[in-house]
């Protein structure tokens, strides 16, 4: 699974992108966030407040209950501030 980070999530995790293989028990965005949080101190800092984290699965906006699978591209980022 390809995981992307943007804005301050990228800074806290310390990487723009990583390829990871979460366990089979990780089936939703919410599961993935819980699992990622335990990968490093940086991940823990990035995922400390889920209310300010948005997610996209395969470049479509997702919710905590959106399913994730091994070949997905999953991105985490703060609320968008373009325009």
């Amino acid at each position, binding site marked *: 699974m390809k995981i992307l980070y943007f*804005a301050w999530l990228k800074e806290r995790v310390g990487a723009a992108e990583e390829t990871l293989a979460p366990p089979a028990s990780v089936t939703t965005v919410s599961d993935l966030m819980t699992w990622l949080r335990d990968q490093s101190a940086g991940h823990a800092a990035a995922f400390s407040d889920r209310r300010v984290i948005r997610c996209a699965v395969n*470049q479509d906006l997702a919710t905590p209950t959106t399913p994730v699978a091994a070949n997905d591209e999953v991105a985490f980022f703060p609320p968008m501030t373009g*325009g």
Partner: protein
Amino acid sequence: MATIRVQTADFDIGAELARLTASRVDIGGIGAFVGTVRGGDVAELMLEHYPGMTERALAQIVARAEARWPLCGCTVIHRVGALKPGENIVLVLAASTHRQAALEATAFLIDWLKTDAPFWKKETHTDGSTAWVEAREGDEIATATWLAER
């Protein structure tokens, strides 16, 4: 009939308007919005985006506007990279036979772009400190209002 671009270079509103209206005589009005970098204590704005998803999200927002208003065409150009106060950030154009549709679609496009297109701004202040710009609650309310008005 939509032009969607993400670029580091500035845009030329006159040239974009000419491209949008070229050889068409069914257009009665074009609405436009140009977003610029405000100064004050900001020395530089860094615009980050999610390549691939950005174009996809902008195309979805444009499709939503085209489904809602009878548009003759529209243009969304968003800059990324380092920008100074006074520089252009974003251009939205919406052309229609009627002015009301053109103006409403312009407002719709910029409102949705703010909440649904993957761009993030980081400010460098005049004192050298940096901060990611936080989303304004009002922006999500603006988008939600369009949904409620359907």
